[in-house]
C-alpha cells in the first residue's frame, strides 16, 4: 500500500482541498490585527480602544463570509491567498486607525479620519471578491470579453485627464465628493485584455518573425498593438504624470508577452522601449525630473523640492524604527504629512515595527506573488496561465514600485501599497484581483473527474484453495 501525498498546487487525483488549513490561517489573520489594534490603543490612549469589539467582529465577519463563499464556490482554491489578503487588509486598517490618532493630523483643518471609510471599503472589497467568485464560475469566461476589457481599460485610464490634478498627478476622478483611482481597476481589465489577445496571437508573435542581429523581430501587424500599449503608457505618464501606472502596465505587458511567446528578445525590446520612453519623458517633464532629483539625494533637496522632503522624511521614519521599531502607535510617521496613510504607509510600518516588521510585510506580499505564480504554473489553460501571471506580476511590480519609492530605492511614483494604504479603489480592486486568482487556482487544483469505471480494471478475485 502506498499513500498518495500531494502538497503541490498542481492538481492531481485526490488533491486535498485545504479548506480547513485556510480557516486556521484565517483565524490568525483576524487575531493578529486585533492584537495590533489593542496594542495601538494601549500605546496611544492607555486604554483598550473603544471600537475593539466592533473592529474585531467586523473583520472576523468579513473573513468568515469570504471563507464560506470560498468553501462553497471555490473549494479547491489556494488556501493561502485569502488569509494573506485578510491579514494585510486588517493590519492596514490598524495602521490607518493609528495615523488617525495623530494629534498633528487632528490639528489640521480638513482632517477626516480614514479608518471608518477604509473598513467600509474593505467590506465593499470583500463584496467584490464574493461577487467575483459567485459570478465567475470559470475564469475562461473572461476570454470572451477581451476587447471589451481593452475598451474599459482605455476609458478608465483616460477619464482622469478630464479631472483636475491633485498633488501633481492626474490619476483621480471625483464623483459626488468621492475620489476614485481608475488606474487600479484598469490594471485588472488590461490584464484580461492582454491574456485574451496574447493567447490568440502568441504563435504569430513567437514564430512569424525575422531574425535580426540575434533577435527575433516580429511582423508589423503583430507588433502594432504592442507599440500602441507602449505609446499609451507613455501618454499616461505625460498627461497624468503618473509614473507608477505606466511602469506597471508596461512591466505587466512585457512579462505576459514573454510568457506567451517564450522569447527572451521581448524582454530586451521591453527594456529598450521603456528606457527610451522614460528618458524621453524625463527630459521635458519637470514633475518627473523633480522626482528623480529627489531620489538621487533626498536630503540635498530638503525643504526645496516637495518630493525630496517626503522621501527624506520617509527615510528618517525607517531609520528611526531601526531593527525592532518603536512599537505600534509609538512612532512619529505622521511627520511625513498628508500621504502618511496612503503612499507612505509602509514608512509607518518601518518606524513602528522596525526592520523585522517591514521584512515580514514584504514577505507577505512576496507570498501572495508566489501563490499567484504557482497558480499560473498549475493552470491548465494558456488564458488562465497568462491571466494569473499577469495579475501576480502586476502585483509584484506595484509592491516593488511603491515600497522601492518609499524606501528611496527607485524614484517615488505615487502608487499605493496594496491592501495597506487608505483608499477605496485600491482595496476594492485588489480584492477583486485576489478573487480572480482564487478562481483560477480553484480551476487549476480541481481534481480531474474520476475515470469511468472499467470492468477490465477490476481486481482479479483470488480464490483461496
Amino acid at each position: 500500500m502506498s499513500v498518495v501525498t500531494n502538497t503541490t498546487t498542481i492538481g492531481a487525483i485526490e488533491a486535498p482541498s485545504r479548506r480547513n488549513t485556510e480557516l486556521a490561517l484565517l483565524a490568525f489573520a483576524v487575531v493578529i490585527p486585533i492584537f495590533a489594534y489593542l496594542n495601538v490603543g494601549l500605546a496611544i490612549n492607555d486604554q483598550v480602544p473603544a471600537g475593539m469589539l466592533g473592529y474585531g467582529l467586523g473583520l472576523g465577519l468579513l473573513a468568515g463570509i469570504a471563507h464560506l463563499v470560498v468553501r462553497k464556490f471555490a473549494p479547491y482554491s489556494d488556501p493561502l491567498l485569502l488569509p494573506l489578503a485578510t491579514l494585510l487588509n486588517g493590519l492596514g486598517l490598524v495602521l490607518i486607525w493609528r495615523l488617525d490618532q495623530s494629534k498633528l493630523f487632528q490639528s489640521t483643518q480638513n482632517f477626516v479620519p480614514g479608518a471608518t471609510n477604509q473598513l467600509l471599503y474593505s467590506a465593499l472589497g470583500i463584496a467584490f471578491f464574493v461577487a467575483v467568485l459567485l459570478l465567475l464560475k470559470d475564469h475562461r469566461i473572461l476570454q470572451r470579453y477581451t476587447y471589451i476589457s481593452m475598451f474599459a481599460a482605455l476609458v478608465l485610464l483616460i477619464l482622469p485627464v478630464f479631472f483636475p490634478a491633485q498633488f501633481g498627478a492626474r490619476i483621480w476622478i471625483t464623483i459626488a465628493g468621492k475620489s476614485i483611482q481608475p488606474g487600479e481597476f484598469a490594471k485588472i481589465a488590461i490584464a484580461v485584455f492582454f491574456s485574451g489577445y496574447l493567447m490568440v496571437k502568441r504563435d504569430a508573435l513567437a514564430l512569424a518573425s525575422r531574425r535580426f542581429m540575434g533577435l527575433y523581430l516580429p511582423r508589423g501587424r503583430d507588433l502594432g498593438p504592442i507599440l500602441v500599449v507602449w505609446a499609451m503608457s507613455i501618454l499616461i505618464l505625460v498627461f497624468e504624470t503618473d509614473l507608477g501606472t505606466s511602469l506597471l502596465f508596461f512591466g505587466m505587458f512585457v512579462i505576459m508577452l514573454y510568457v506567451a511567446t517564450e522569447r527572451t528578445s521581448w524582454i530586451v525590446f521591453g527594456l529598450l522601449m521603456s528606457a527610451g520612453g522614460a528618458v524621453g519623458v524625463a527630459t521635458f517633464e519637470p514633475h518627473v525630473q523633480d522626482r528623480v532629483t529627489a531620489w538621487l539625494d533626498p536630503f540635498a533637496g530638503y525643504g526645496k523640492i516637495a518630493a525630496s522632503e517626503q522621501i527624506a522624511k520617509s527615510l528618517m521614519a525607517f531609520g528611526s524604527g531601526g531593527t525592532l521599531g518603536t512599537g505600534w502607535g509609538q512612532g512619529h510617521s505622521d511627520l511625513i504629512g498628508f500621504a502618511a496613510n496612503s503612499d507612505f504607509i509602509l514608512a509607518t510600518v518601518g518606524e513602528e515595527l522596525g526592520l523585522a516588521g517591514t521584512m515580514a510585510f514584504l514577505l507577505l506580499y512576496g507570498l501572495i506573488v508566489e501563490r499567484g505564480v504557482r497558480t499560473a504554473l498549475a493552470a491548465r489553460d494558456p488564458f488562465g496561465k497568462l491571466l494569473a501571471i499577469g495579475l501576480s506580476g502586476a502585483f509584484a511590480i506595484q509592491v516593488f514600485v511603491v515600497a522601492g519609492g518609499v524606501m528611496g530605492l527607485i524614484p517615488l511614483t505615487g502608487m499605493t501599497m496594496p491592501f495597506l494604504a487608505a483608499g477605496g479603489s485600491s482595496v476594492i480592486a485588489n480584492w477583486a484581483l485576489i478573487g480572480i486568482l482564487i478562481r483560477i487556482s480553484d480551476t487549476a487544483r480541481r481534481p480531474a473527474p474520476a475515470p469511468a469505471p472499467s470492468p477490465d480494471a477490476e481486481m482479479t478475485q483470488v480464490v483461496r484453495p
Partner: protein
Amino acid sequence: MNKPLRRVAIFCGLLILALLVRDNWLQYVRADELNSSKYNRRVLIERYAHERGNIIVDGKPITGSVKTKVGDFAYKRSYVNGPMWAPVTGFASQAFDATQIEKLEDGILTGTDDQLFFDRTLAMFTGEEKQGGDVITTLSGAAQKAAFEGLGTKKGAVAAIDPKTGKILALASTPSYDPSTIAGNSDKDGEAWSKLEEDKDQPKLNRALRETYPPGSTFKVVTAAAALEHGVVSGIDDKTDSPDPYVMPGTTTKLPNEGNIPCKNATLRVALQYSCNTVFGKLGVDVGADNMLETAKKFGFNSEQFVPVRANASVFPEKINESQTALSSIGQFDTRTTPLQMAMVAAAIANDGKLMKPYMIDQLRAPNLDQLSQTDPEELSRPLTQEHAQMLQQMMETVVKEGTGTKAQIDGVTVGGKTGTAQHGENNSKNPYAWFISYAKTDAGSPVAVAVVVEDSDASRDDISGGGLAAPIARDVMKAVIDSKK
C-alpha cells in the same frame, strides 16, 4: 509556457529581495545616521516628550517642565529665576535648539544617554514613564544672587570660583534674558527670540565665559607673579628700579600714571596698592615677552576652558616688541580676558599658587537618584610657588586695606583684591571697563575668588573705576559665600 513562468517567478523574487536588501540597508546600516539627522524632528520630539531632568543648585532645581497643550512636543522647559541663571543653564527651546548645559548634558536630561541605559531598560519592564536624569551644579544660589543683583541694570559679568577645588560658585551676566520666554515654539516665543537677536546689548551673550575684555590693571597681578617667578624682583618690599614717567623702549612715548601717585622706584607692594603703570610696564619689559607669555599661559591664558561649557580663550599676545610688552603687561594693547580667567588668576593666588581646573557640574544623577558621575577637583597648573603666592596675597590684601580696593572690605575677613580700569575704543574714546578681582580668606582658608567686570557706558566717565563700581559687587558675592558657609 512553464519555463518563462519560472523565470518570471525568479524575477518577482528578485524584486522582493531587492526590497529586503534595501530595507536592511536603511533600517540597520543607516539607522543611526537617519535617526540623528538634523532634519529629523524626532530628536526634538524626544527631547520634549517627557519631563526633562533638572539642573540643580543648592539641592533645588532651577529648571522645570511644563505640559504643553498644542503641537507634538509634550513638555516645555521652564526656569526658576531664568535671567539670573541663564549664563549657567543656557536654554532648551522647542524651536531654537539648546545651548550650554541644556545642550551638553542633553542626553542625561532627556534620558537617552548611554549611562542611563539600565534605568531605561528597567523602566521599560516596570512600565514607568521614561525620565531624565539631573545635573547637579557646583553653584551657590546666594553667591549667584549677590552677583546678579550687584550687577543690576549695569552691563557686565561676574565669575566666582572656590580656589581650593575650582568649583564655580557664581556665573552672572547682564543684561540677561529669560530662557522661559523662548522655550516653546509658539509665535510668542518666536517674537521673543527675534527681539533677543536684534537687541544690541546682546542679552544672550554669556559675558562671564564668552566675552573677552581688556583686563586693565587687574592684569598687574599676573605681571607681578611673572616678575617674582622669573627672579626679576626678589621681595615685595624691595625698591624697584623704575622711573616716573617711563619712556617705553624703542619709542618716545611716555607711559603715564593716573594721577599723582608715588611710583618712582616704588616697591611691588606700593606699586600694586597705587596701581602704578610705570612700575608694571617696566617690569613686563624686564621679564620679557616670552616669560610673560609663559606665566600667563600657566594661569590659563591662550587656551579655551571647558567648564564643561566652553569659555573663550583669553589672550596674552604673542610675538610682541618691548613697548607692546610694556602695554600688554598692564592689561592693555592686545591683552584680553574673560571674567572667568581673571577669577582663575585670583583663585590661583588665593590657593597658594595652585590653580584648580574650574568646573560647574558636580554630579550627574539618574532619575532614581543614583549618582552617575562625580567631577573630582583637578589641578590645572602651578603658575607660581607657594612663597610667591603668599607674597602676592600680602600685596593684594594691602590694596584692599589701604589702596584702591577699600570698598571690598568685609568685617572680620581678610580680603585681597585688585582694581582695574581698562581703556578701550579708538583713542580710548569709549567709556572704560571697571574691573575688580579679589578673594576672601578666613581661618579655614580661602572659600572664594571673584572677578567682576562692569562695562557701563551710561555712567559718566569720571565715575568709572574698578574700585567704585566693581569692588562692591565682588564684596557682596564674597560675603554671600562666607555667610552661606556659616
